[in-house]
């Protein structure tokens, strides 16, 4: 169970209320596939991932990026019990998709960097700390159902 101050909750709510999912989602996932190329193994059915340009232009990557980013909404809606919010998705990632939980951190770092690029100096150290705390809680919840 993660404890949130009022300020932290407000920061997270604020970030998500202004979030352009259609922009950030594809950018974050494509960046992850480019910077950490071994993550491409989970997307062998996505077609051409041959180089950075192909990944950035890949419609399936873009669509999936948006889906994954909306997955964060579950945590946003249930910040006081994030573990429960992700129980089903955790089972999915472990039992069906077989994703190594270390990869959650890689995607999480890419989301942070893409958001930082979008917000510029508004992405203060405090904002970064709160956002990474939120992503950390989501990652921990996603890893819960792994045995």
């Amino acid at each position, binding site marked *: 169970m993660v404890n949130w101050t009022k300020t932290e909750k407000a920061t997270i709510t604020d970030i998500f209320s202004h979030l352009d999912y259609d922009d950030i989602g594809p950018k974050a996932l494509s960046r992850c596939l480019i910077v950490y190329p071994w993550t491409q193994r989970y997307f062998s059915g996505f077609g051409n991932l041959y180089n950075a340009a192909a990944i950035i232009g890949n419609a399936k990557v873009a669509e999936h990026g948006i889906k994954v980013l909306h997955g964060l909404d579950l945590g946003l809606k249930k910040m006081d019990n994030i573990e429960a919010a992700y129980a089903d998705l955790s089972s999915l990632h472990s039992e069906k998709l077989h994703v190594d939980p270390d990869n959650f951190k890689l995607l999480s770092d890419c989301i942070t960097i893409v958001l930082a*690029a979008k917000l510029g100096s508004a992405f203060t150290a405090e904002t970064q700390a709160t956002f990474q705390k939120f992503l950390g809680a989501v990652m921990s919840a996603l890893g819960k159902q792994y045995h």
Partner: protein
Amino acid sequence: MSLSDKDKAAVRALWSTISKSSDAIGNDALSRMIVVYPQTKIYFSHWPEVIPGSIHIKEHGKKVMGGIELAVSKIDDLKTGLFELSEQHAFKLRVDPGNFKILNHCILVVIATMFPKEFTPEAHVSLDKFLSG
């Protein structure tokens, strides 16, 4: 991970764009690190205060970025070029190497906020490989 010629070219190109802001980058990256990862403050307990933007952080940020500038100049042989700094961090400063990843991440975040256009995914992967090396 070894750096390809493309990686080296990308790092040099990005560095030439960002180097004039290296003091600001160093300050912001270190300030972020102690806020986002408070456990890193332990390495600076000899300073009177460990707060973002303080004179100590600014000076140390400059030092760290100087180290990166050195690394860029020695990009063709990082192991030899950074040998002394590596020894210093291991034996004198006794920094847990996990913290290098933390600082690297903070540097990448700062570059993303300051240079969103130039910090493309391709530049990102090359710089990440370089900083990890």
